[in-house]
């Protein structure tokens, strides 16, 4: 079976500055892969390059078995950016924003039909925001806006979800709604690639974690189950890792001045 995402020895960056040096990554159908890493490690650049938003300097990227430059089935990918776009001078309702998610499937020239409206309502229901469909997105909390963006991606009924730190600064209710929506998506055979700052409530869902460090994949493996004091709420995991943990992957991404053993 061909992979959903295949990255081979890829280097990428902006304005001649190389942020990713040599990255190889394979995501198979049904995989749920978390990308971890410190701020500035290049994890955001990694997913943006995969989506074609950052130019590739070297190496290859394949999406659903097609080289990225020739890939046209964008309706198979649902992208959830970190926050609502900057352009919001004009009010827009939650329903209107989520309806944008149908464009990849519908194309430029067809007017929205019953199937589009149903998909929008289903997607909003999945994130628990159906009652806010007519409200301006500007009146929603940060977490609810984040859920709106996930609904927008789900509305296109994609095979692959790509999320850029969806849980950053999100309230508890939204985190839960969010974990539920992703669990259902993965349960139906969907593939997920997401950037996380911490595994948090999504931990049970994550099948594999990769750590990006200094423009490379530093580690790749199964995220460890929390045990002992690791499982305590509020544990911030600042001690040096013991030898026994070497094979696993640390729950927290290495930050400046902290080594990942």
């Amino acid at each position, binding site marked *: 079976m061909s992979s959903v995402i295949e990255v081979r020895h890829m280097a990428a960056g902006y304005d001649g500055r190389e942020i990713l040096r040599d990255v190889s990554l394979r995501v198979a159908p049904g995989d749920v892969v978390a990308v971890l890493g410190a701020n500035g490690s290049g994890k955001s650049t990694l997913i943006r390059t995969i*989506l*074609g*938003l950052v130019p590739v300097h070297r190496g290859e990227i394949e999406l659903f078995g097609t080289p990225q430059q020739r890939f*046209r*089935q*964008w*309706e198979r*990918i649902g*992208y959830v*950016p970190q926050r*609502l*776009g*900057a*352009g*919001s*001078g*004009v*009010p*827009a*309702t939650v*329903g*209107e*924003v989520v*309806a*944008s*998610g149908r*464009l*990849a499937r*519908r194309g*430029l*020239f067809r007017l*929205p039909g019953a199937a589009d409206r149903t998909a929008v309502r289903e997607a909003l229901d999945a994130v628990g925001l159906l009652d806010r469909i*007519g*409200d*301006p997105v500007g009146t929603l909390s940060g977490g609810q806006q984040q859920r709106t963006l996930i609904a*927008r991606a789900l509305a*296109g009924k994609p095979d692959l979800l790509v999320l850029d730190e969806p849980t950053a600064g999100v309230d508890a209710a939204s985190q839960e709604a969010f974990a539920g929506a992703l669990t259902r998506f993965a349960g139906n055979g969907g593939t997920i690639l997401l950037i996380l700052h911490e595994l948090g409530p999504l931990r049970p869902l994550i099948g594999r974690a990769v750590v990006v460090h200094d423009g490379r994949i530093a580690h790749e493996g199964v995220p460890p189950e929390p045990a002992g004091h690791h499982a305590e709420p509020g544990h911030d995991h600042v001690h040096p890792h013991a030898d026994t943990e070497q094979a696993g992957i640390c729950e927290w991404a290495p930050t400046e001045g902290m080594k990942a053993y």
Partner: protein
Amino acid sequence: MDLLTYPFMLRALAGALIIGLAAPALGIYLVQRRLSLIGDGIGHVALTGVGVGLLTHRSPVLTAVVVSVIGAVAVELVRERGRTSGDLALALLFYGGIAGGVVLVGLSDDAGNASLMQYLFGSLITTSPQDIAVIAGLGSAVLAAMLVFRPALFALCNDEEYARVSGLPVRTLNLLLAVTTAVTVTIAMRTVGLLLVSALMVVPVAAAQQLTRGFRSTMAVAMLIGVCAAGAGVVLSGEIDTAPGATTVLLALAAFLLTTAASALRHRRRRATPATHVEPPDVVLNA
């Protein structure tokens, strides 16, 4: 109302109504993108086109369309490429546009303040039947494009990267917006003038969004305000003998003040309601 029996007045009214509908329909995307002043800039560039037309004895409207489309595409390419020098590049283009226009108009046989003023502030009364045909044709094309591509243009202006990942032809849509902006500026040149055209794109949208909750309703209300202001502006200017373009813009601004006041009033009433139900605290500290 006797004025409306004159053919030139009816032509003026027809032209104004078309612009009144098309300008806000386009302007809403520019406002959403925070490019409210781009129409103003393209207006500056269009003046060079007018100068070229007068100098070469061709239709100034036609040459203005060509020059402002070139200018708008150049602005779009600058915007797409750089973030740092974009602002400065725009300024250079705009001032170059207006200076070039003034010099070229001065060099032409038609030199003089009257002809310059006619393009800077509009001159509906001199609108010929051919002009109306051009305004109607191009205005309907702009309006149709803005309505048909609304979902795609909304997605683009709301979140360009998301639009890209949706597989939308982002560059083509950006150029469509640039070209329709240039076309709208040029056809509105006869109605409100190059220096006021941006107002008709932006002010109705600003007025509408005080009252509305969604994008589609904002667009509809903005078009309504635009067409009412343009129609009333022409009629009123005929009655009290003022410049139609400036009268139209003042009416649109009056609509903005009205909707802002209405919205403020509504907010205050909503805020005042729960305040009456505040329960007294359980604990009272005696001084």
